[in-house]
């Protein structure tokens, strides 16, 4: 379930561009309304009775078991589970299928930051009429908010990424550094660590859009305002500036390792102690366990460093939902699978397989909170992570074209990580480029 933002390596660019161009027939997705469909519980039951084929696009490996269980329970349903790529790769494939009008799955995994792009174009179905409104209260407020757009529900949360500080305790103990509770202390720890061991860095960051927006989110920033097709982008926002000022210190002090995330080198650094911390989403433990085996027993989890001493604010990083593309011909059955996976039997199954839940029932379950992680020296990691889930700052919005905005992050903010200009300059350039794109795409941008 790793959230990579790596661009796909593609050969033969032009032929592919032409091919893609050739596939995008009459693209009037933005004008067709998918909303307002009403499917009663009886319809869903009938669909399950009738059975049929369901194509599910998801990269989350814990869904495999859920799909198998679902087919055992409803033998007439045949689920075709496809891994069409992780994150952005899958959205490209999905967007192409939607444009082409063929090969669209019945269910697709979509991260929260990407969902607005699909809900705005109404290429994923509004779920209010399917009975999704009745699920109010089943999910954590942060994730439930994330699947809403314009007051309507467009997906069901399947996992979440409330953030926490993952740190290599062995490194901290060796250099007698206290675990930072504020970002001020975090910067001080970064300096102390790098001075004690020039090969070691507090963390690696060469510019990551998701991380940047999450930290601004935690700082109380609201750089994006979205009201239908009226949007605003403002990185002069106090929260964004708070982040820029603090993080600039780490860049200027050369205290961040430039190793690119999710590479072999990165995992190696996490294992051997040269990358000492990670501030990231609650989905991280299983990635550490499988990717950085050398760090076994050394890592611990602490609450996310705060912007104010004594504060209790966190943000989400990553996390995804399941949505039903408007082009699906079997929406009632698709919704049955959604509900099964997100709230019914599927939720505990997925937690047992290592997913971090978005449902309050699973988060509060005693066996979930009490689970001891050998990788983390027997620490009850989920206690820290579940606490973070309840402290996520509310009111955050992503842009309806966040996938695109994130793709140009390295063009703009990325420069600051090379020492060309400051983060504030970079964020301003990112803002300008996002505004330009938004205007070109017909949004009212202020």
């Amino acid at each position: 379930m790793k959230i990579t933002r790596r661009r796909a390596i593609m050969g033969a660019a032009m032929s592919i561009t032409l091919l893609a161009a050739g596939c995008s027939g009459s693209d009037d997705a933005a004008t067709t309304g998918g909303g307002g469909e009403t499917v009663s519980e009886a319809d869903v039951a009938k669909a399950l009775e009738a059975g049929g084929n369901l194509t599910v696009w998801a990269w989350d490996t814990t869904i495999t078991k859920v799909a198998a269980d679902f087919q055992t329970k409803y033998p007439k349903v045949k689920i075709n589970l496809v891994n069409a790529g992780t994150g952005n790769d899958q959205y490209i494939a999905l967007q192409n299928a939607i444009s082409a009008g063929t090969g669209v799955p019945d269910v697709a995994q979509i991260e929260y930051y990407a969902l607005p792009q699909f809900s705005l174009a109404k290429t994923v179905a509004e779920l209010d009429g399917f009975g999704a409104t009745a699920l109010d209260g089943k999910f954590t407020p942060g994730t439930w908010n994330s699947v809403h757009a314009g007051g309507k529900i467009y997906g069901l949360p399947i996992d979440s990424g409330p953030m926490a500080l993952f740190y290599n305790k062995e490194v901290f103990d060796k250099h007698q550094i206290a675990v930072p509770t504020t970002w001020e202390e975090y910067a001080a720890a970064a300096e102390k660590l790098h001075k004690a061991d020039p090969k070691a860095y507090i963390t690696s960051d060469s510019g990551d859009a998701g991380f940047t927006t999450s930290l601004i989110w935690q700082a109380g920033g609201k750089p994006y305002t979205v009201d239908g097709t009226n949007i605003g982008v403002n990185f002069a926002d106090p929260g964004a500036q708070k982040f820029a000022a603090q993080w600039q210190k780490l860049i200027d002090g050369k205290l961040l390792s430039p190793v690119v995330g999710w590479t072999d080198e990165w995992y190696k650094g996490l294992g051997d102690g040269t990358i000492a911390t990670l501030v990231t989403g609650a989905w991280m433990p299983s990635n550490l366990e499988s990717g950085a085996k050398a760090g076994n027993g050394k890592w611990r989890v602490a609450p996310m460093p705060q912007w104010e001493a004594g504060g209790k604010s966190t943000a989400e990083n990553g996390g995804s939902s399941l949505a039903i593309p408007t082009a699906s011909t079997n929406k009632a059955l698709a919704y049955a699978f959604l509900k099964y996976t997100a709230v019914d039997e599927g939720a505990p199954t997925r937690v047992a397989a290592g997913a971090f839940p978005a449902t309050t029932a699973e988060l509060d379950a005693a066996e979930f909170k009490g689970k001891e992680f050998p990788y983390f020296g027997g620490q009850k990691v989920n206690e820290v992570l579940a606490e973070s889930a309840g402290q996520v700052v509310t009111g955050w919005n992503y842009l309806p074209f966040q996938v695109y905005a994130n793709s140009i992050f390295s063009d703009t903010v990325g420069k600051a990580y090379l020492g060309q200009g400051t983060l504030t300059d970079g964020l301003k350039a990112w803002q300008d480029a996002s505004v330009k794109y938004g205007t070109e795409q017909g949004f009212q941008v202020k």
Partner: protein
Amino acid sequence: MTRRSWTGWQFTGPFLAVFALVYLAPIIYSAYLSVFRTQLVGGTSFVGLENYTKAFSDPQFWEALTRVSLFLLIQVPIMLGLALLVALAIDSGRLYGTGFFRISIFLPYAVPSVVATLMAGFLYGVRFGLVGSINETFGLNIADPLGPDWILTTIGNVVTWQYIGYNMLILYSGLKVIDTSLYEAAAIDGAGEWRIIRAIKLPALRGPLVVAGIFSIVGSFQLFNEPQVLDSLAPNSITTYFTPNIYAYQLSFAGQQVNYSATIALIMGVATMIVAYAFQRRSMKGTL
């Protein structure tokens, strides 16, 4: 009364059908797409030539075009010069083990460019790889070959390494078709090796050099794989508009601006044709 014979058409028909399907149809469809605009809000509308006027005043497109032009002007002469040198050296007959020499220079061409670039990326990494080791061993601080200032040079290096052998082979085959009696005649007249190169070999290589040049022009304008692969190692050095092809890729896949992307692709196609044609006209003047 003349009866039209369809025999010719029957023979060329299969080719023409495939040609129309895989060459003409995509181009026509791209041209069709390029006169529309699809917005996330507002859907699709006919915009005439607006995408074209936009492209000509698009600073990102110009930056990309300037970059590949620079690449063309610097990397291609170096690469062809080296290839020429190697071809002449092998042809001179004064080298031992020419077969081995020839195959080892040609071998990089057999390495897929994605693999070649990854290899170069690891070689040039300042924290791992060769550059990192040199810096560490000698306490140096060599400029980061994957930094934004040097990345184009690094790509040029990779491309040169890959394609010298290929171009060498084109030139070498040009040398092999020269009638050896010319050399004998030149030797009788007292011409040395340099004289033979200047008076016989180079003029004979004019055609092959033009062919190699045109391939290189097309290759430079279509630069994509190398920067795209390096993007995963040095994301801040490779912008999303690093080359025209990367820009077109970004526009259609990340930006969903398929129409504008088709416009860029068409402009680049036409630009490549013009440059290649001008090059051919100029260099073949007086020979054809």
